[in-house]
């Protein structure tokens, strides 16, 4: 089985978010970057489990500059066989998906996997875009995946339940919680990752269709209004007359 997993660099969940250049750029100073959790814990680890069970290979692909190399090395340390980095600024989801599709189109991957969203731009788009561009079936928001021969069976979370879906490889899917358990790279993995191939390729032609003008932070929350636990009942009245939500 030949699997391609899209890996994105994202700021650690606990990062303080601020902006520079007149609020037009994300301030990366002091921010620790990680592999986007949905790409790592769910898509990559499930890809590795499928490879371990069925043979084959797992390649990761990232669109980004050399600053993405540390998180790509981590994916290699967790167990990916090799990695590709498209050397370009990931300006919007359409551009990123065009690069991934262009790379994947003639390489006969059985599965192209992404996380269900990145925790920075929260677009949930790249998987569906790649499926649209490669004209492959798309399984979105998948919490469980099994493959037997060329048939894939997947569970998709829907409002108030799950659907069990079946389709044929090759396909594209986006992964959510439940697909696999996080793997912590061990020393052997980290050493082995140094010798694995990280191929840097130039960007194919492609364009961004959207552009960020500027950022803003939510208005500061006014201080919490504390209610004495003895008078807890007052809360209900406040929610009605002041907050007007009940």
């Amino acid at each position: 089985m030949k699997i391609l997993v899209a890996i994105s660099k994202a700021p650690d969940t606990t990062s303080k978010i601020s902006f520079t250049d007149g609020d037009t750029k994300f301030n990366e100073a002091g921010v620790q970057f990680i592999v986007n959790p949905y790409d790592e814990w769910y898509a990559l680890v499930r890809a590795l489990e499928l490879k371990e069970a069925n043979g084959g290979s797992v390649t990761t692909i990232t669109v980004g500059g050399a600053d993405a190399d540390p998180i790509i090395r981590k994916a290699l340390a967790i167990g990916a066989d090799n990695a590709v980095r498209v050397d370009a600024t990931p300006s919007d989801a359409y551009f990123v998906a065009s690069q991934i599709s262009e790379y994947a189109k003639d390489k006969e991957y059985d599965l192209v996997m992404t996380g269900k969203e990145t925790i920075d731009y929260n677009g949930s788009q790249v998987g569906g875009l790649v499926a649209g561009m490669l004209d492959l079936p798309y399984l979105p928001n998948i919490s469980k995946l099994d493959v037997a021969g060329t048939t894939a069976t997947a569970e998709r979370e829907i409002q108030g339940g799950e659907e069990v879906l079946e389709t044929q490889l090759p396909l594209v899917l986006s992964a959510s919680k439940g697909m696999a358990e996080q793997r912590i790279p061990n020393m052997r993995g980290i050493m082995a990752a140094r010798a694995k191939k990280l191929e840097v390729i130039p960007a194919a032609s492609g364009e961004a269709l959207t552009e960020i003008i500027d950022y803003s932070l939510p208005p500061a929350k006014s201080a919490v209004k504390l209610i004495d636990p003895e008078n807890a009942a007052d809360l209900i009245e406040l929610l009605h007359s002041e907050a007007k939500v009940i």
Partner: protein
Amino acid sequence: MSVLVLAGTAENKVLKSAFEAVSYGAKIASDAGTDLHVIAFGGASSEDLMGLGTYGANAIFVEKSINNTQPFQMANAMTEIAGKVGATIIVVSYDETGKAVAPIVSAKMKAGLVAGVVDFADVSNGVIVKKSVFSGKAFARVKFNSEVAIIGLTPNSVGAKEMAGSPEVKDANTTMGDARITLKETKKEDLGGQVPLPEAELVVSAGRGLKGPENWGMIEELASILGATTACSRPVSDLDWRPHHEHVGQTGLAIRPNLYIAIGISGAIQHLAGVNASKVIVVINTDPEAPFFKAADYGIVGDAFEVVPKLIEAAKAFKANN
């Protein structure tokens, strides 16, 4: 030019988020002085679909034969209708169906897609929208550079506003292509008659501070009196104290109800990422240093086992008088 809105349905019913999406599209159509078209899939009745008319829909195209499990066919149908009506702005509620379909439409039409939009669009000069970024910790203003703009609207962002309209329900009659995905089974969670979390306006949520699953009776009672839906934090769902579908937070559901009451939840950043867009947040916790108080509008520093019974009594009295 015109506006096309995908009206989401599930189990043969128009979703609450569909009324909001249609209302959102109606505002754009009225700002830009153009027509509003709607497309819906599945077996919702004509009466149900006609309800969209009171939110400003003119023509409603229906493709009855397919359901939400076929994002490719839905995208093919939407692309065809968008071309037919000359849509330059497409509005999709960015719920599980929107997330599945809109990116494929974006790829097919080479139309920019901005997902997670939380406010009305500015169409005075091109199309500019405001979206949530960094899991609710910031916003970005985004401009479209494509001929067709697809707006992925976060459910419960702007609400639905009634507007006069005289809808006409038409068969969409599109060429959707072959179904590539087979639905083998649908497993429904027993929601006990509650509104599903993504549609809930009131949510009562509890965490590890409750000490064990046997103590959820009072949470369910408070929720039931208020007409709220119950939710929980990740540890509680991981420990199987509560069903998986109740888990809200970064890896669970992201919700934005009008009221979120968090009981015995400390407010880890991963939890906040899923609930920080709630309009009013109430936190009840024994620890005055719990980070959740910083995100709260109302707080009670106290023991849930003493506070919640008082709230239940007060809620009962309130409901009896209102």
